[in-house]
């Protein structure tokens, strides 16, 4: 593969890992606080719809973003209510919300816009689009470095930059702030947090809200940045890949980024390899590449490459009185 082609794949890797990264970080906040969330998928989908609908109705991308985040946070709060207050089964709650999102988005989309569940196509000014700064052109003339910078670093949509800034930010919040300390504690031993005089409930609700917000950005990116409107089931399992990435990264922010980049790269490669013949290998079954993230994650879980130990209190509602 020549230099340029490689650049292009990496460029699309960035675009494809962005939603994964946002969703995985979202999951990180929730699961670090001890709330398992397989509802990332549903939140993203709902947010994507809200963003698409919002942007097309108001004609403003930012309004779309706002709505996307709002709806996703509401989903997060329902999940929170089920797992924190009602002490329900977190997995079941996640499954349920995924169903609701999958159905409701199309149902409402169809009822409101009559385009088979799709939201109307957005014009460029109603979307988050990357714009190359004018010095990008000059940069290109600089060999190698120049083209790398202009291809990979410049000209992405605002949300892409947000996603990648969230990585160091999350690390800082988690390991350098009071909130982070308590968040990590409540995911490992809520009783310790409780006896330290901190409300487990409030802390966990904060976590699911943050999780919702980030999923909201992820969904918004899908709907009004990566494409020009909502499209039914447009998450197509990205929420689960994000979950895999989160586990693969052992619930740590920076590794999460690399996991997402890896999985994004696999996707980018898979897209281009579809039906294509490779010189030596011949025709790689794309399905294999598509399954790779999950296979890798299972291998990791099996403890063959390191050990993935989830937060101890994860998935269990905090019950004082048996």
């Amino acid at each position, binding site marked *: 593969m020549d230099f340029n082609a490689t650049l292009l794949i990496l460029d699309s890797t960035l675009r494809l890992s962005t939603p994964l990264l946002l969703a995985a970080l979202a999951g990180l906040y929730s699961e670090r606080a001890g709330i398992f969330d397989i509802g990332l998928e549903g939140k993203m989908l709902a947010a994507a719809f809200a963003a698409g609908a919002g942007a097309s109705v108001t004609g403003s991308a930012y309004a779309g973003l706002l709505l996307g985040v709002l709806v996703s946070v509401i989903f997060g709060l*329902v999940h929170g209510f089920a797992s924190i207050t*009602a002490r329900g*089964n977190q997995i079941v709650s996640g499954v349920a919300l995924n169903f609701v999102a999958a159905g409701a988005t199309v*149902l*409402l989309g169809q009822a409101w816009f009559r385009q088979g569940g799709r939201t109307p196509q957005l014009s460029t000014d109603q979307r988050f689009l990357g714009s190359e700064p004018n010095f990008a052109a000059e940069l290109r003339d600089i060999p190698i470095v120049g083209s790398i910078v202009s291809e990979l670093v410049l000209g992405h949509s605002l949300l892409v930059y947000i996603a990648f800034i969230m990585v160091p930010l999350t690390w800082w919040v988690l390991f350098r702030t009071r909130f982070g300390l308590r968040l990590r504690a409540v995911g490992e031993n809520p009783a310790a947090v409780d006896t330290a005089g901190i409300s487990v409930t409030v802390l966990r609700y904060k976590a699911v809200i943050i999780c919702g917000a980030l999923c909201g950005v992820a969904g918004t990116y899908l709907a009004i940045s990566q494409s020009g409107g909502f499209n039914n089931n447009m998450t197509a399992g990205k929420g689960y890949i994000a979950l895999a990435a989160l586990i693969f990264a052992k619930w740590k922010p920076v590794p999460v980024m690399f996991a997402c980049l890896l999985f994004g790269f696999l996707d980018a490669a898979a897209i281009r390899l579809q039906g294509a013949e490779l010189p030596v290998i011949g025709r790689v079954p794309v*399905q294999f590449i598509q399954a790779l993230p999950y296979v890798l*994650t*299972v291998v990791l879980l099996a403890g063959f490459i390191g050990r993935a130990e989830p937060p101890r209190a994860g998935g269990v509602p905090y019950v004082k009185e*048996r």
Partner: protein
Amino acid sequence: MNNTLPPWANYVLLPAINLLVAFIVSGLVVVAVGENPFKAAWLMIDGAFGSGRGIGFTLFYATNFIFTGLSVAVAIHCGLFNIGSEGQALVGGLGVALACLWLGAYIPWWMVLPVAIVMGASFGAAWGFLPGYLQAVRGSHVVITTIMFNFIAAALMNWLLVDWLRPVGQMGPETAVFAEGGWLPKLTGLMNFLGADVRSTPLNLSFFVALICCFLVWVLIWRTRFGYGIRTMGLSPSAAKYAGIRPARTVIIAMMISGGLAGLMALNPVMGDLHRLTLDIVQGAGFVGIAVALMGRNHPVGIVLAALLFGMLYQGGAEMAFDMPTITRDMIVVIQGLVILFAGALENMFRPQLSRFFLAMHRRGVAPEAEGAA
């Protein structure tokens, strides 16, 4: 959860309340899309049970959910949360399809069926084995591994159907249609004999296979030594250790049984109706199985009832979509989700109030049946 509810409240009253709430919220959704919820409800019920055809379809869908519900339930009895029934059923479909493709042309269905059952079950079991093994031996969380295995199964089947099983010149990624020997008899005749007037229905013999499985699961869990071990594992692993019930072995076998039951689900769509293997034979039945098991309180009888409920949602929902322009098929998915949410995740939302109520009655000695659960 301190459970001070009398059994009948726990098994009937609470689920009923949860369902009611789920349907009320669904009604609100119907209103949101500008339709009359009561009309919708009527269309749904009438569509599901109003005609022979409706009943046929309802039972057809219910068959899937009985299988997956049993699958989830067996795992839960062992303290395992298997949300991989989806993938296990899909892989089971491969087993069933292979049996039908190979034998369908040579021997009649009643000779193919046992082979299909064995292959479907064992393929599903194989797909349940690995997560079980990883949980038992390497301590990897079965919930997460089964999620992953669902996707791996999808990719695998996709590859097999596209590159291997698809006959040349055919468009869709599907196997060829089986020869007659790979067709399970439909129950049309029986239904007409019972007085329903139906020209044709997907309902087929696998419905009875499902009912038989219900009985077998009941026997396994409550009437065999191994089932006793499974329940002990599920309720108190430490007691299981004390009793000499081998944890790893029990967990792995339980997961294989669970996977096998899921695998059998494939009989219904593959051998019973489509007579070919396609990619979307499972259609979320694996996940619905979770709700079915939860609502059915992991007991075969409860599972059959819950499965009927969801079968009704599927069929009735489709009929609703026929007759209500603005309501699309997606309404079913929404209602499903809401039922799973309220009857599953939020099942304890009203428990405290109910408990307090019954405890009060118990203290006053009004409700003697509360004694049992005091």
